[in-house]
């Protein structure tokens, strides 16, 4: 999350730079940032799946009941 937060801030600064540059930006300048977003959501889903499987393997409810 810290990684994605830092990346998001970098991208933000980059966008603001482009907003003040002479070249006319397009949606294609934003799309790669959205692709990063998709990637982070995939990582989150995968991480949840792995953590869940690991917990089930180590004995259901070992930490709960």
């Amino acid at each position, binding site marked *: 999350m810290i990684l994605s937060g830092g990346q998001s801030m970098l991208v933000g600064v980059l966008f603001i730079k482009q*907003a003040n540059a002479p070249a006319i930006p397009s949606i294609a300048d934003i799309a790669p940032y*959205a692709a990063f977003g998709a990637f982070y959501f*995939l990582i989150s889903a995968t991480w949840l799946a792995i953590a869940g499987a690991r917990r089930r393997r180590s004995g259901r409810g070992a930490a709960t009941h």
Partner: protein
Amino acid sequence: MTNETLEKLPSTQDERWLQSYYLVRAAVAGVWVAAAFAFGASVPALAAALLLAYPAWDAAANVMDARRHGGAKRNPTQAINVVVSVLTTVAVAVALTMGMHAVLGVFGVWASLAGLCSLQPPSAAGEATARNGR
């Protein structure tokens, strides 16, 4: 105490919900990227719609997340995200009338803010992830 402990632990159902939430968000972002690259340059109206839909969808997704996890008060990060994303949607609508430089400026401010937010203590979803990771 028992109740509190039980309440804090994520149920399998909750875990599944979060998992599909992240998968849906990944899929939507993927489709958005594909559409942006495929039609962004050739169909300006669609590009504008995509630019508006991006923050609007983020707001909607955060509303769903907060609702699922006990409402806005218990999910301050999501609540802030909803407000910021709604404001961003409005700002994008205004910026679209001014040109792409303005739109990039809005996205730039939004991304910077979002970055700052996720550097803060984790959201409810993040906490759930951390708890599940243990």
